[in-house]
């Protein structure tokens, strides 16, 4: 059973590589029961979205 601390590590790595099947299953199992980590996942994905938007705005000359 994953701890929240371990889960955050996997959620970060999921932004950078494809998780293995076992990793994915243990993470999903954890997320199904943990509201804090579910929010953490949304926040990490928000960071990616924000960076993409930031980059697009700079490239397109929007402030």
């Amino acid at each position, binding site marked *: 059973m994953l*701890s*929240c*601390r*371990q889960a*955050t*590590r996997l959620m*970060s*790595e999921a*932004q*950078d*590589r494809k998780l293995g099947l076992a990793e994915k299953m243990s993470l999903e199992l954890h997320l199904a029961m943990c*509201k*804090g*980590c579910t*929010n*953490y996942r*949304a*926040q*990490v994905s*928000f*960071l*990616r*979205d*924000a*960076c993409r*938007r*930031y*980059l697009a*705005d*700079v*490239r397109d*000359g929007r*402030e």
Partner: protein
Amino acid sequence: MSPDTSPLMDDAFVTALRHDLLKFARLQLRNDALAEDMIQEALAAALAGARRFDGRAALKTWIFAILRNKIVDHFRVSGRVTNVSALSPEEAGLDQAFEALFKANEHWARDARPSAWGDPEEVLVQQRFWVVFDACLNHLPASTARVFMMREFLELETAEICRALDITAGNCNVILHRARNGLRRCLDKNWFSPESTRC
């Protein structure tokens, strides 16, 4: 398009372009003089080949790509002399702050449990959010920021980052995790007022 009417001869276009290039380069390099130099080089390289483009948007995209490659090359060279995996006091501080979010059993401490940030679309259109975001990015320790920006703004895969900076994949993951935790905590504290939405 004749060479005489190249957009790179249009002062207004070049001024606006420089402004955007500078914003991008400064963010990555945290060094204004170096950023200026790189932009100068990128524009010079563009001037040599700009005639192949007949649209300003395409030209701009291309010059951004030139600048991006110059920054990646710069990191590749300087990455050999700065040890990004060495832990600075600032980075150790980020790690301590992260560990403090958990109880002994590694589950979230009661008041550290991440809360919902709401609809990203609503946040990302607010001008003031970007001021906070910028400040939080600049607040990250230098090595942590470098790896994060190579990943998110230079859009390199982690394997490429590891090669460029001569660090292991495990190290790269640790640094990216540290960066994301630092950023999320900074945004949580300074933008998503924590008191109102904690569950």
